[in-house]
């Protein structure tokens, strides 16, 4: 048996806890059965689903996330990192073991909910809903393990406050439920028609696989098992392909370009602020590049450069594909949608500025400083200058709103200035 799985079972299960949960659930269902007037099948199904949500999506997800953060609290993380277990074994041991008690309760709930729902709904429908719920639980739990492993690097307390899992719970479960409840309607995806519930189930399989890969790769990183940086761009491509599938067939190419660009931008910014970017990390990359060891450099490189680079081909694609649609209302002429290349240059500028703050020897909160600067550059300053009604001045500050050629030139100047600042900071912070 996987040692981590077994350890989690030791912690999660005792004879008392194993006996207590069925008793509590029986009491809950009995209360529903005895107090609800009329047929009790549907109320029992709903209460079973609700308790499943509490136990699997709530308690199980929280326990899975805590299986990572507790190692820090108990100062046992070094022992785990020193073990000989491979990342996947450690990841699934935590995932399955920590949430086992929640799944135990969830399984008991399904034993009541599925037969009850079956009295009012077709079996296939009930099973698909149950499958979607199980996959949503797996997805959330794996995702929170991945997120907490990332947050460990930043010493963030967000995960311990439970904010992240609550947010994910609402987002994922909410969207899956919304899809699932629209029964009878069909979804067109990449020109293929699907039953909406089938599509929700298949989508949840995809999300769960992505979450498991994320947990595995994050664990590998935490256990110092370096891997080539394909995971982040692969996620960008998967999300792009998934979202573009909903586009009308005749507009697939421009949508692919814009969705890819936006996905890459979101993932780049997310990785930029979620991963610490200390100078020594980049020293390692530069040192390995200088010695010509490209593989070693790739093993050290953080996530964001991969999606920054991937944004470029999407920007080119979007630029070429959007030309015929420039007059169409949905393209918002002269806005960000028409300036993909300038947008990539600004994205690169923002990365350089984030590193500028991250390399500061005195900066205690580089992410906060970076966020404030972004607020000023993208919001406050253009707003202030916009009051003067001078679009040229505004376009110098925010080149996305200028005409294409001007925006490209101004964005390039922005990038050059940011790189110059970064170079200065790099030289000024040489270790002594």
């Amino acid at each position: 048996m996987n040692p981590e799985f077994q350890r989690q079972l030791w912690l999660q299960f005792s004879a008392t806890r194993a006996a207590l949960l069925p008793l509590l659930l029986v009491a809950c269902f009995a209360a529903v059965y005895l107090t609800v007037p009329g047929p009790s099948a549907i109320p029992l199904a709903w209460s079973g689903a609700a308790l499943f949500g509490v136990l699997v999506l709530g308690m199980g997800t929280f326990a899975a996330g805590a299986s990572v953060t507790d190692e820090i609290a108990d100062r046992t993380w070094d022992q785990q990192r020193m073990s000989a277990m491979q990342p996947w074994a450690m990841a699934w041991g935590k995932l399955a073991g920590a949430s086992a008690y929640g799944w135990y309760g969830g399984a008991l709930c399904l034993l009541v909910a599925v037969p009850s729902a079956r009295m009012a709904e077709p079996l296939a429908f009930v099973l698909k809903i149950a499958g979607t719920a199980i996959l949503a639980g797996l997805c959330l739990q794996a995702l929170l393990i991945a997120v907490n492993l990332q947050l460990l690097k930043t010493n963030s307390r967000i995960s311990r406050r439970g904010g992240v899992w609550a947010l994910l719970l609402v987002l994922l479960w909410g969207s899956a439920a919304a899809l699932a409840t629209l029964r009878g309607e069909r979804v067109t995806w990449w020109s293929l028609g699907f039953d909406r519930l089938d599509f929700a189930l298949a989508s949840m399989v995809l999300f769960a696989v992505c979450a498991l890969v994320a947990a595995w790769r994050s664990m590998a990183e935490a256990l110092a098992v370096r891997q080539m940086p394909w995971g982040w761009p692969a996620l960008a491509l998967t999300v792009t392909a998934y979202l573009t599938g909903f586009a009308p067939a005749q507009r697939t190419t421009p949508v692919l370009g814009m969705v890819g660009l936006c996905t890459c931008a979101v993932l780049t910014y997310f990785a930029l602020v979620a991963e610490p970017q200390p100078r020594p990390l980049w020293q390692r990359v530069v040192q390995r590049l200088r010695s010509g060891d490209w593989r070693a450099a790739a093993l050290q490189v953080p996530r964001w450069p991969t999606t920054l680079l991937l944004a470029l081909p999407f920007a080119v694609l979007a630029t070429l594909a959007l030309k015929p649609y420039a007059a169409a209302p949905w393209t918002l002429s002269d806005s960000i949608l028409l300036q993909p290349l300038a947008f990539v240059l600004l994205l690169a500028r923002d990365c350089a500025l984030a590193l500028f703050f991250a390399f500061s020897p005195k900066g205690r909160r580089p992410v906060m400083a970076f966020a404030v600067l972004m607020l000023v550059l993208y919001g406050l300053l253009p707003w202030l200058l916009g009051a003067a009604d001078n679009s040229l001045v505004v376009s110098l500050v925010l080149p996305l709103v200028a005409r294409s050629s001007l925006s490209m030139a101004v964005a390039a100047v922005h990038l050059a200035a940011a790189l110059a600042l970064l170079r200065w900071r790099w030289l000024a912070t040489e270790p002594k």
Partner: protein
Amino acid sequence: MPIMQRQHIRNKESHLIQPVIEVSDLTFDYPGFRALDNVSLSIAPGTVTALVGPNGAGKTTLLRCLAALDTPLSGSVRVMGLDVFESPREVHRLMGYLSDNFGLYSDLTVAQGLEYAARSQGLQAQAVPEAVRATARRMGLGDKMGNLASALSRGQRQRLAIGQAIIHAPQVLLLDEPASGLDPEARGALADVFKALQAQGMSLVVSSHILAELDEYSTHMLALNHGRVLEHRALHPHTSSAMGAAVERMLRLEFVTPVDAIAPWLQDQAHVRLSRAEGHAVEIGFSGDKAAQAALVGACVAAGHPLLTIAPITENLQQSYLKSLAAERATGSTPRTPA
């Protein structure tokens, strides 16, 4: 046959000469300062190396790099020939590590904690029960198997943590301030454990500020300061590793005449490494056996160098360390002395 003994025999067969740890040009930066600066060293099998140095010298960083817990800017670390940064999980099967800030799974019993450690370090399932029993006995926790870790005393927790680090019979054990917070009796017991582990062929690297305690069981001293190796050498004369590999010892040779001309001649002799020459005396590191030492005395006489006395240099760890530190401060250089 107990696991430790099997490991010991395997060591003898396959690693008679090969160092268990080889560090080459290791450099590690924290933001704004260099914690390790081109550190190179090798640790012989069956030795206990006292890792000493002032606060901020780089001791913990070095141990964490050896354990593949932190990635250096440059350089390499090999344990039993394996690159720790390329194959960290494989290296961890050969290594135990106890951090200065260790924790225990307080809701697990002693037996569960040891079993988890054994299995997560890759021990075969059938070997786990015996390893758990043997380790608990060795660490004096045989009668506490059913106790929760949270119910143990400070010393017992320390011993449980060390037990978890050694249960898979590693060939290298890294310990960062292992005796911190222990009472004198518990420290004495810990020293006995370390001596027993060394006797079974394990190589230990122990970082501590309590030099008197290290002196009790260390065979070598590795002094760090400002991230550089001040000194790395055998501590006691006639010290040899458990594996039988030749280990250098320090000798002081006193001559009738000033040693200005003798020192270069000595340096060319077999097994000799010149350490210091001053006035009428020379200090050398000597890696030969007694016959070689007798041959050196004969060579001195034959070459016309009037040798007055030859004696082993005995100094405790504290004296060695302070001398290294003083030498560095006086000269501004870092005398690197390979063990």
